[in-house]
């Protein structure tokens, strides 16, 4: 029977509407699984299929995705007398904290049976504007905005007093709206028609990596001409000057890393922070948190071979052959670290 006051009726209908919305959203999200995220969805599928074999995983940005070859790494580790790891590169272009933290958690949620080592690229939290609007508002820019990681991003932005407050507010609002997008499932199964109708090759253009290892090396095309000359100048200028001081990790990142390391440990694995060689401008090591294994290569002065113009296809990335050598070096250093650790008194 309709209530006498229409507004009372409306007020009572509102919770029904909200509950129906929330219930249906929850049901759709649960039944839909991981959203379609270019660069990640396919890696996640492979990860799930091979979760009983993989014991080592690499997570990070292009400097992980294109620089850490699991095959070269595993061979180097085996050559040092340790068991040959079954490694997989789960890195993706532009993957930095908090997204990389969320991605590690997503990988752990698949309950990998043999996982022993999680190599996480050790990088600061990138701010909005570092990637370009097209990326930030894409499925990749949005998917990781759950409560925990949005809070980390928002806290970090809000405390960064180098930015004017309006810009900080704007960036926080963007993160919050993306969190709302994730919470409401908006666009989660978007492109209904294109997903169904477009030919397969049009949909999987981004999945060019090796399905066995997850790795994709850059082509053997070293810098040449003006680019190489400019790069040499920058390199020479950097080597001629004083090396920049070690960066201090912001408190929020340190706390988040500590929490992540504990979760990795609970999953039966160990977190290894790795700092691959960055561009010359960003080449500056960061002090790792105590108690976490760390492999640092992000200092021009100490790692000149990875910064040689011949090893680079652009200012920030190595060519495939240099990446293989780098992976072998990481494998050797990692083996030494493991040996040192097992020899150390507990």
């Amino acid at each position, binding site marked *: 029977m*309709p209530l006498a006051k229409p507004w009372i*009726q*409306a007020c009572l*209908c*509102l919770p*029904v*509407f*909200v*509950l*129906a*919305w*929330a*219930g*249906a*959203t929850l049901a*759709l*999200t649960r039944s*839909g699984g991981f959203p379609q995220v270019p660069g990640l969805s396919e890696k996640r599928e492979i990860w799930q299929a091979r979760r009983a074999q993989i014991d080592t995983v690499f997570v990070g940005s292009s400097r992980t995705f294109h620089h850490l070859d699991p095959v070269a790494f595993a061979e180097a580790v085996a050559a040092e007398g340790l068991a040959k790891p079954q490694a997989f590169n789960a890195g993706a272009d532009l993957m930095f904290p908090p997204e990389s933290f969320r991605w590690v958690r997503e990988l752990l949620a698949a309950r990998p049976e043999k996982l022993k080592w999680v190599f996480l690229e050790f990088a600061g939290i990138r701010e909005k504007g570092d990637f370009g609007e097209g990326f930030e*508002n*894409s*499925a990749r820019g*949005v998917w990781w905005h759950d409560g925990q990681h949005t809070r980390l991003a928002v806290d970090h932005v809000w405390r960064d007093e180098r930015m004017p407050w*309006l810009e900080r*507010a*704007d960036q926080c609002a963007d993160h919050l*709206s993306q969190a*709302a*997008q994730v919470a*409401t*499932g*908006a*666009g*989660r*199964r*978007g*492109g*209904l*028609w*294109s997903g*169904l*109708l*477009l*030919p397969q090759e*049009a949909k999987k253009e981004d999945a060019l990596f090796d399905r066995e290892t997850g790795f994709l090396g850059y082509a053997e095309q070293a810098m040449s001409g003006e680019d190489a000359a400019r790069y040499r100048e920058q390199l020479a200028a950097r080597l001629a000057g004083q090396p920049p001081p070690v960066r201090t990790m912001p408190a929020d990142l340190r706390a988040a890393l500590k929490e992540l390391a504990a979760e990795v440990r609970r999953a039966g694995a160990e977190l290894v922070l790795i700092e691959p060689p960055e561009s010359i401008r960003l080449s500056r090591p960061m002090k790792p948190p105590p108690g976490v294994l760390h492999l640092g290569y992000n200092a021009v002065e100490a790692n000149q071979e990875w910064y040689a113009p011949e090893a680079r296809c652009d200012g920030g990335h190595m060519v495939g052959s240099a990446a293989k050598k780098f992976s072998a070096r990481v494998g050797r250093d990692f083996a030494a670290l493991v040996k040192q650790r097992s020899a150390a008194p507990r």
Partner: protein
Amino acid sequence: MLFVEARFLLFFAVVFTVYWLVRSETVRRVWLTAAGFFFYCCFFIGPPLEFAQLVGAGKWNELPRGWWFPVFLLGSMGLDYVVGIGMGAAATARARKGWLALSLAANLGVLGTFKYAGFAQQSAAAFLGWLGFQPHWPVLHLLLPIGISFYTFQSLSYSIEVYRGHIPPVRRFLDLAFFISFFPQLVAGPIVRAAAFLPQLAAPRRWADVDPRGALILFFTGFLKKTLVAENAAPVVDAFYASPSSWTCSSAWIAVLAYAVQIYGDFSGYSDMARAVARLLGYELPLNFDFPYLATSLRDFWRRWHISLSSWLRDYLYIPLGGNRGNRARVALNLFATMTIGGLWHGAAWTFIVWGMLHGLGLLVHRWWENGPGVQCRAAGKLWTSAAWGLTFLWVVAAWIPFRAPTFAVAAQVAGQLFGAGGGEKAFHPAAWALLAGLAAVHAAGQRRIWRRGLDRLSDWGLALVLGAGLAVALHFMPMHYRAFIYFQF
């Protein structure tokens, strides 16, 4: 700020709440006019706080391009207000005509400059180049103020209606400003006639007269059309039109049909949401779409598609040109010219003009047929109706090809592909046919009011449940990036 965006819903929640809390009708109109300007400004100024900061710091050069466009809106209102007052006070018919000429010249002058000057210049240069001249003119790249075609026609309807004596001139500037800046229809219609809207201002709006249930159903219908239909069809259409020659013949058919679906879902979805928002504020906007793809003739189609524009063109262009009066050639010319101008209204490009011409041509053929051989065919009953529907639909779909294609070369390529000429190997999944057939069935059921009757039978609780679950489904399956409404560009 699009109707499907969360920020619009937030904006509307504030506007709606304050509007109904206020008792004074004048204050309400001031509030809605201010909201209309704010809504319009949001398309040009970017984030309002950032804009305010730039203005505060006096960084005029860093302001977004076109931030001053709302001035045109204000100018159009101011001019037509003065014109209306002038006409009211004019003692002679000649003076009234003078005032009307001023309104026409100023409104169409601004529209012409921003929308058509660059196009006219390029067309003239191409023509002179073809003749052998090499004109060296500076290239005009004017930013088009969003919604200018809509509010110009709306503003003009006021001057014309006052001139014809259908309505008295408004005495308060606020009323005219409110009519033109009413945000539900400001940027993409429906094109509201002054004679249909201004009388609604005579009596104060009462919440008791509002049908919120009907308005919510209408808004939700529009939301589904935009998010589930138009936005999902768009990537398929875009993929095809990016390189038509690489797709198969059947894919060409799927793509042109998908575009027909996309543009209908997009524009009628917008119109539904606009009408719903207006209803929630106590105002009625005209019906803009009435199941156009079920039309059985082109004339019928134009009574169902973008009704507010087709009736505007009929009353303010076709009839003044002479309409059905005069000999056959004259009537044909009136009809063809009206449709061609209708095409040009959509955009400054020859492809739009050709789209209008195709409809003009189709209407002429229909006119000839109806007055001649068609008389006998009509006796064939349902069979004839089905054939008429099929022909009309095919003509409408074919005419969308130049409308969507970026160039005539692409349009010709696509048209050829429909008949197997050219084309490549890429193909859409055959499930597309089932999808299109399903949408056709939904459209046909809509005309029989099957969906609406089903929703009307629900209790308020049941409706809340359906809308809540439906919203979740729509949000889930809408693309992550929705496009602006297609008609915003016109």
